[in-house]
């Protein structure tokens, strides 16, 4: 397994939602109403039996609580930290209906799953060898969830990971005040303890290995390659130094160091959750002035309201209805970006003449989306790709028998918990297919 450098820029971040002490966890667990057909469960993509695990915490059965969580979602440790519970389980808590604070489900889940990691409780063993083999393309949350579930059924699993580090965006993309990279790798290791998962790293399908070869080796395949590179803007000045894709930049400082000593002002272009992460992270990394530049209004942001509120508390500024026109160098010809020239957009979303303003920035991050990687799959007969996404049915099956897809490459970019749910669901569908003798 890849080792992270000990000195990483992300290490300086504190937990935005600190871990519960036992006393805090018990007090919160005892507040849970133990609902029936609970709305929180219905709003969890992996349908964790939340009232049950919370009840177990309240009785001191922390191991049982962890078992309940991991039985539904093997990535329950990272989901406890990174899930936007405000819009999922906790957002559905019935306490909201009486204007009382909802149960802190994420923090309780973290309490139980951290305890499991600390004590190294093992809940799962690989099933008896079926003689079948499944190849998984990608090493992120969807791939890991699928691999673990397939091993429980007894199928052999090989993960083909293009990058050198497992865990996907859990390792390289999660805001460090939610989870740091080393914790994501702890989880990878913990998941793979079930045994029997072969990891082939640095292999890109289509370049190093053909799809036909893969299909010969395995009875089924799961495509879980995630999303591609950050999209960049094709505007004047794009060649200047200091302009980066947000996902790439985040990866860089999570896995190592970044030098921001020259950056007094930074601009992040975009209005989604990656943009919000990026602005908060830049503040955390010590950039004195961080501005989010977004084409729409505050109300039109696709990022979560609760995340943006936290960014505002951090002191982030925003330039709404602003369209970048060009990057400028601060002092002529040093080749470094010094600002972003923006036009204000009218109600018709067209630039208002004469409204141009300069947002000073010695660092510009673009968080306007990532390219979609599904294109390579379009070459496969039977596999449909729409808008860069691999088209799948409710079980994750593509139109090609034995080929499934899960996670961002199929859903276009959602939460870790969605990837975990889709990976597991695809694994279950593959097991049914293989058990029925399909795709021999």
């Amino acid at each position, binding site marked *: 397994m890849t080792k992270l450098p000990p000195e990483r820029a992300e290490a300086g971040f504190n937990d935005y939602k600190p871990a519960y002490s036992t006393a805090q966890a*018990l*007090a919160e*667990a*005892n507040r849970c*109403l*133990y*609902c*029936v*057909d*609970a*709305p929180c469960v219905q709003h969890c993509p992996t349908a964790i039996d939340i009232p049950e695990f919370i009840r177990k915490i*309240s009785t001191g059965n922390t191991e049982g609580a962890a078992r309940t969580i991991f039985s539904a979602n093997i990535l329950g440790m990272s989901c406890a930290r990174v899930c936007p519970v405000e819009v999922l389980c906790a957002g559905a808590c*019935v*306490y909201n*209906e*009486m204007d009382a604070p909802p149960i802190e489900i994420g923090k309780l889940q973290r309490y139980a799953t951290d305890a499991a990691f600390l004590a190294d409780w093992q809940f799962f063993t690989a099933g008896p060898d079926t003689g079948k083999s499944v190849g998984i393309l990608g090493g992120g949350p969807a791939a890991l969830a699928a691999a673990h579930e397939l091993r429980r059924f007894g199928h052999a699993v090989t993960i083909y990971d293009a990058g050198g580090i497992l865990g996907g965006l859990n390792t390289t993309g999660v805001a460090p005040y939610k989870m740091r990279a080393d914790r994501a790798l702890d989880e990878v290791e913990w998941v793979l303890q079930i045994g029997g998962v072969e990891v082939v790293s640095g292999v890109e399908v289509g370049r190093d290995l053909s799809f036909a070869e893969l299909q010969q080796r395995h009875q089924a395949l799961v495509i879980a390659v995630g999303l591609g590179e950050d999209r960049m803007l094709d505007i004047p000045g794009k060649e200047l130094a200091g302009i980066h894709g947000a996902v790439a930049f985040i990866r860089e400082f999570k896995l190592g160091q970044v030098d921001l000593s020259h950056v007094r002002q930074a601009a992040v272009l975009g209005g989604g959750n990656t943009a919000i992460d990026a602005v908060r992270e830049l503040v955390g990394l010590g950039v004195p002035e961080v501005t989010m530049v977004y084409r729409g209004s505050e109300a039109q942001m696709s990022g979560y309201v609760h995340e943006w509120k936290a960014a505002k508390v951090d002191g982030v500024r925003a330039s709404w209805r602003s369209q970048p026109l060009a990057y400028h160098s601060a002092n002529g010809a040093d080749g470094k970006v010094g600002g972003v020239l923006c036009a204000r957009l009218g109600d018709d979303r067209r630039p208002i003449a004469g409204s141009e303003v300069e947002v000073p920035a010695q660092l510009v991050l673009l968080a306007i989306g990532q390219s979609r990687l599904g294109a390579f799959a379009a070459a496969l007969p039977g596999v449909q790709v729409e808008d860069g996404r691999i088209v799948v049915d409710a079980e994750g099956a593509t139109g090609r028998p034995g080929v499934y897809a899960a996670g961002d490459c199929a859903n276009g970019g959602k939460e870790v918990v969605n990837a975990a749910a889709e990976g597991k669901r695809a694994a279950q569908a593959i097991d049914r297919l293989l058990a029925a003798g399909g795709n021999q």
Partner: protein
Amino acid sequence: MSTLIRPRLGASVVPDLTSNTGGIVTPNPFWLASAPPTNSGGQIMRAFDAGWGGAVWKTLGTPIQNVSSRFGAMNYKGTRAIGFNNIELITDRPIETNLREIYEVKKRYPKHGIIVSLMVETREEWQDLIKRAIDAGADGLELNFGCPHGMCERGMGSAVGQEPSLNERITSWAVEYSTVPVLVKLTPNVDEIGPHGLAAQAGGAHGVSLINTIKSIIGVDIERKVLEPRVGGMSTNGGYCGPAVKPIALHMIASLARDPQFKLPISGIGGVSNWRDAVEFILLGCSSVQVCTEVMLRGFRVVEDMTEGLTQYMRDNGYQNLDAMRGKAVPSYSEWGELDLNYETIAKIDPLKCIGCHNCVVACHDGAHQCIHPDPGGKTRVPVVDESECVGCNLCQIVCPVPDCITMVEVPNGLPPATWNQHVAEGAPLRAKKGVH
């Protein structure tokens, strides 16, 4: 608990909280029970400063040696000590020290009530100790016939309280020697309280106080496999008290209060934790209430809310003094056979208050009569009550976390009242049974 706003019947009236229990007069009905909080004069003076009306001094007797540890508690869902027990005995301080402190406290707090609890064996000992307690300034005596642990093994405490003839005999000695009112503290560790209250009455007592603690094992240390509270590798049964015992106390007090032969004033004890509890005890016939556990857990300061809450309750209900409210709920205590079988209620769920937890659904399905169901249309989380099957059992209302969301409403079924006794004797017609599918 929802805030009830009632018209104040006597807004200008300042209720008088003065309490008289068999001649023991205190500024309010809140007494500290004979227990660790009344172990010393220093404690009792601080309690009086905090607002307590009286204190029953920790039982005097031949000084004993106590064990460690002494207390155990039952916790539930994060609430500490809803039940409590102890294996502590009577005072372990020299009698002379206690008597000197009684004298000092009484001198400094002449208007407060000092009731001295006593427990000795022989007639001579009773005579001697009663005289010394009264000489020290006791306003009343309480005979400890209730302690269910330790002392009963030596033929005292509940060993006396469980035997009506012994109770009557020792009571009569005490009354003979005493020049101040004598209360007999009764043990709940009996099948019916009636004969024991009547024994105290026959012995000439001026009042009774009940309940003493209930024989109990508070818990087992599941790691060490030893009872709690643990004394080395062993333990023993203790006396159970705290909020969890209130229903038992209420029953025993009401049983005496409704007994036409029983005429004595009652000082109520058993899980009184706040003014609401005190109101319940007084409505069931108590002239004063005694508190221990709540003070042990939270201190003397809890009396402020007790007196304030009781005062407001009396004002809201137009009671000028305790006599006006005492026993008001006693007539409602009846035999089952006298209950109106034709009285019918059903559950109503307020859809605007319902938060959709479905706890009523599962309680009704698994624990009652399967008549509350999820919204059949699935459009809302508000359950529906099948009124044709609802037996009006209250379980849904009990589990509902939202105040006043589920109410039990009367169904005017047009039938005249009919009790089981009337039905058996006169064939009074009963309504059709529900929930018997």
